[in-house]
């Protein structure tokens, strides 16, 4: 099964690369190819000839427009304007008379203008797929618990149960404290959401969803909102009047602590985005080597390294889901923590979510 998977990966990657090279008219630009692969797209390019045109949804000066992304390509696979819109470098803009993106002067700079783009892009389609997968898997498991109540788990249920218990007992409980139970559903959801999407991104033809800053931004934003919504007065007291800090120092400390509120989710956002994107870039770069050297001899080495990287990425997929969940639970723990009455100046009791240094991956 693993071998088959690796083989498929290699085959699919090769076909897509070959096509990428062909599209550029013989000259292979690894940078463009990689950017194209880790970026978003209006079509889902599984393999050469196996392309899914996704719906484009636009709202702007022409009202609401919904059409297939296939309309932007003619029979020769060239990009053409459609209905007054033009696709340029993965974005849709209003087309001018010549079929080029319309520009506008904004603050002395020339800028393309386009409608509000709510298209079902490759990433959105992948997001829907993962949502269906998540709901399907966990509804099945929940059904099993009802069906075989009080009996031993089996099948998919016994695969996921230890992971669910791990999130509850090893991530939520020790980091949040006695009020952990109401955060468990959110933590489980982000854990499995990130993990599933990381894995889907590693599939041949998969979209780089968790390596997209918009997705990680929203995930981090949810963590921030929940942290702030559940914060108690100790949390704010810690920010505005850190215990044991002299008053003049507070002038420096308060802005730092306030910025700290935002840097925590920001680090969450960047960490997940960078890790997943970096993994994709490395694998793509390894394959690019074959085309850069234009030698079949490089092939086995590239493939060997890429397979190794792929297994590493399978691990990173889980690790990043864990890290995101763990850090989220630590932030929640910091927000709901009751004052511990330990004369440690608010530091150094080890379990202090706000001040626990965590090695960023």
């Amino acid at each position, binding site marked *: 099964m693993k071998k088959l998977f690796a083989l498929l990966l290699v085959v699919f990657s090769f076909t897509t690369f070959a096509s990428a090279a062909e599209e550029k008219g013989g000259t292979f630009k690894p940078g463009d190819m990689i950017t194209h692969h880790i970026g*978003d797209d209006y079509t889902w390019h599984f393999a050469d000839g196996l392309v899914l045109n996704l719906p484009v949804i636009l709202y702007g000066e022409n009202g609401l427009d919904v059409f297939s992304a296939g309309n932007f390509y003619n029979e020769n696979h060239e990009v053409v304007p459609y209905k007054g819109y033009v696709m340029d470098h993965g974005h849709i803009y209003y087309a001018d008379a010549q079929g080029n993106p319309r520009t506008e002067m904004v603050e002395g700079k020339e800028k393309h203008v386009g409608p509000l783009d*709510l298209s079902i892009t490759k990433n959105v389609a992948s*997001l829907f797929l993962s949502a269906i997968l*998540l709901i399907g898997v966990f509804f099945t498991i929940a059904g099993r*618990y009802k069906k075989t109540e*009080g009996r031993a788990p089996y099948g998919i249920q016994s695969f996921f149960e230890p992971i669910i218990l791990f999130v509850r007992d090893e991530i939520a409980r020790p980091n949040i404290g006695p009020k952990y139970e109401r955060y468990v559903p959110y933590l489980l959801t982000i854990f499995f959401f990130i993990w599933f999407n990381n894995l889907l991104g590693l599939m041949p033809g998969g979209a780089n969803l968790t390596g997209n800053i918009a997705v990680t*931004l929203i995930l981090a934003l*949810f963590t921030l909102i929940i942290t702030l919504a559940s914060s108690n007065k100790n949390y704010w007291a810690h920010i505005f009047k850190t215990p044991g800090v002299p008053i003049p120092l507070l002038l420096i400390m308060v802005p730092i602590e306030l910025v700290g509120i935002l840097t925590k989710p920001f680090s969450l956002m960047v960490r997940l985005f960078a890790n997943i994107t970096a993994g994709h870039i490395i694998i793509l770069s390894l394959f690019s080597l074959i085309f850069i050297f234009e030698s079949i001899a490089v092939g086995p080495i590239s493939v060997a390294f890429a397979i190794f990287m792929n297994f590493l990425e399978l691990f990173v997929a889980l690790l990043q889901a864990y890290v995101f969940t763990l850090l989220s639970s630590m932030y929640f723990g910091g927000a709901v923590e009751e004052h511990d009455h330990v004369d440690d100046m608010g530091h150094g009791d080890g379990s202090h979510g706000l001040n626990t240094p965590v090695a960023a991956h």
Partner: protein
Amino acid sequence: MELVTPGIGLIFWQTITFLLVLFLLSKFAWKPIMTALRERESSIENALSMAEKAKLEMQALKAGNEKLLAEARAERDRILKEASEASNQMIEAAKAKAGEESNRMIAQAREAVTNEKRAAIAEIKNLAGNLSVEIAEQLLKRELKDATAQQQLVSDYMKEVTLN
């Protein structure tokens, strides 16, 4: 720069989809799963504590049994001891009684023998007296057939008798 610029479309869909997934999973997946896990944990906990309790009860029962057994053993020993004492006593008493009885019988026998002997002696004495009287009669009859001899005898007696 393109890579780190979040797209509006994806932000929109991600927010909606994630909220939907979060809501659906929380309500229809995590809630029943967590409840089931908690129930199972508590039932395991209960089962374990009940097993522990049963073990303790078993131990108590075993201890009780042993106590009963020990009591029964002690009772048996006591009964055996009493029985053997009683039998000893009975044997002793029987022995004593038998001794007494035999002594008594010996004494009776001895007495009887003594009495018999005395009676026999008395009878012998009588018999001897009678015999001697008869012999003396016979002798006298023969001796005193003549008057002279009778005279002689009377005179002898007379001589012998002293009037004092």
